[in-house]
């Protein structure tokens, strides 16, 4: 895939946010009143809200839910308008399919691999069902006051059963890789490289919150989103949501200043700040989110600052301070008052940089 350069890059990433400004109004000609009316009509009809919302799915369990976007156009849209989300099989922009199509001229068995995954996915689903049954048994046992030995016995049983299940699948030939590869290779040539895009765009919780709460982009309300992520709001304690809130507040803070904020995990930090976005320049700043009244072991500071310094980036410690009591925050959460909730935190920043005496003598 040829990388878009210069002007085309500007064109492609014209909008820094998925809400577009109304910048397509006709021009007003002073001596022509009709143009005024036409302008007013266009203005009245125009809206910033996109006509179709992006649909998200939740994958995994409740402890580590993953938020994914599967529609190809949606994926592209989120990426192009502010660089939201990460392709699970790419490093940032979801380009897996394009890469596959590009590569397929040389290697056709990628298709095979992808088909295997598809079959695996089905297998896994069946497997999942089996497990759910067993787990239900376990839960019943727990509810009925079963003891540890009984529980262990059940787990052993479960293990055995899972093994048998797998074995059965293998015997059915589905688990046998080689035969599938051969089979689908033939298929692949016949179908003329019709790829199924198996890549999803995954959103960080803070990104999804931003796209639901701050901007009306996702087809989910902040309330539903957050209860999917953190469970029913009636059971919430402050400890459950503190970390998320401080991270969201930080994310929102930088987003609202115009930064493109992305996960900084590869540099061991919370966020990376890009001035426009990854295609334009390298990230300039690494953000660590901290509680304003906490302090970590020095090893932590030295370790992250070395990694960040090694990448020639600037390390920013972003401290978040809660301005209201915990129970007030929990109350806001329960009553879905996210405006007041996020607005009850304040950020303060310092820059942390190693200093070398020998370089600063004159």
């Amino acid at each position: 895939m040829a990388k878009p350069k210069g002007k085309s890059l500007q064109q492609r990433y014209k909008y820094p946010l998925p809400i577009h400004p109304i910048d397509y109004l006709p021009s007003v000609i002073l001596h022509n009143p009709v143009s005024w009316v036409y302008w007013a009509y266009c203005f009245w009809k125009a809206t910033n809200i996109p006509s179709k919302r992006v649909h998200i799915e939740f994958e995994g369990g409740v402890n580590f839910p993953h938020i994914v976007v599967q529609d190809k156009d949606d994926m592209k849209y989120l990426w192009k308008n502010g660089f939201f989300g990460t392709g699970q099989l790419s490093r940032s922009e979801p380009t897996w399919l394009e890469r596959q199509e590009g590569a397929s001229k040389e290697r056709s068995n990628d298709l095979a691999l992808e088909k295997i995954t598809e079959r695996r996915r089905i297998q896994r689903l069946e497997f999942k069902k089996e497990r759910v049954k067993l787990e239900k048994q376990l839960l019943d046992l727990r509810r009925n006051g079963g003891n540890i030995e009984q529980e262990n016995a059940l787990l052993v049983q479960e293990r055995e059963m899972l093994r048998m299940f797998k074995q059965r699948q293998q015997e059915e030939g589905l688990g046998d890789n080689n035969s599938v590869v051969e089979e689908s290779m033939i298929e692949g040539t016949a179908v003329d490289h019709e790829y199924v895009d198996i890549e999803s765009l995954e959103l960080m919780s803070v990104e999804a919150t931003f796209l639901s709460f701050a901007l009306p982009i996702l087809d989910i309300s902040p309330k539903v989103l957050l209860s999917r992520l953190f469970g029913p709001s009636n059971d919430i304690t402050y400890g459950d949501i503190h970390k998320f809130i401080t991270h969201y507040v930080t994310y929102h803070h930088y987003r609202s200043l115009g930064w493109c904020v992305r996960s900084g995990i590869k540099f061991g930090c919370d966020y990376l700040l890009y001035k426009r976005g990854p295609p334009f320049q390298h990230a300039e700043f690494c953000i660590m989110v901290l509680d304003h009244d906490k302090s970590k072991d020095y090893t932590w500071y030295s370790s992250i600052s070395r990694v960040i310094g090694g990448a020639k980036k600037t390390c920013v410690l972003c401290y978040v301070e809660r301005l209201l009591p915990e129970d007030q925050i929990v109350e806001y959460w329960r009553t879905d008052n996210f405006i007041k909730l996020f607005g009850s935190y304040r950020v303060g920043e310092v820059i942390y940089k190693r200093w070398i005496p020998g370089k600063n003598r004159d």
Partner: protein
Amino acid sequence: MVNKIRISVVVQGTDASDLVLTPLIFKLEDVERARKLGVCGILAGTLPTAAQQNMFLSVPLKLMAEEAIWLFLSGHAEVVHLRSPTSSLIGNLIKENLESLQAANESKLQESFRLQRQFKVEQHRLKLESLGRLPPGGELPHDPQIDSLIDSSLFVETANSSSILSKLSSKQQQDGCIDAQIINCMIANYSNWDNYLLYQSLRENGYVLSPGARFGGLYIAYPGDPLRYHSHITVQPAIDYYKEGIDLTLLTSGARLGTSVKKMWVIGGVKNYGTKQEELRKPKAPADVSFFSIEWAGFG
């Protein structure tokens, strides 16, 4: 046992939680012996001949608490602890022993002067000889001007280690029970037993350890004397073996950093509780320590 490495420690106050100042070694031969045992410490004093840089320094040697404790528990060192206020301790020692201290100092100084004079006269003689003003092997004529010149160029040395402290009576010296207390103070003030056990375990596996904060760790470890070998690992502070989750953010950045500088990122903890104190009494017993070494897999 004779001639143990002498570690000086100043203690403030009288109970176990008292503050102990960094353990120090002042005698060059002690620094050398500790180094041969794999305890390098950090030289922290100005090197008088190159006093305008920080790379090459001289005594005192500053020890990590772990190093001092290891040297002591393995029987290589004695800990001379001095109770604060030390100025009155020194003042009293001087008062009580003034004459003998001065006499010793004077004779040392004169002996040094005698040697220097002898050396300088010989130098001067050789110089004249080479200029042809003196026959080979000839006697130097007495010249008061030269003598005073030589006298004013005599060198007065400031010693590394104390002669005053040698006057400490055995009563003022420590006994074994106080040593144990000092050890506890050091741990309480500068480390913890889990960290010590990691140190001990690595030490007994032949590693030489240095302070590691600059490298994102508690220690860095070398396979031998750092003078000759690259360091191999960055050791993280001990975590609770059973309860504490490894900080995966730290692991990610630490291991990536480690890969770029060819160091393993090592994390460890102590498996069994309750035995630490007793184990310390028999330092040769292997600590029940579990380590994992982490590096980037090279992809992803």
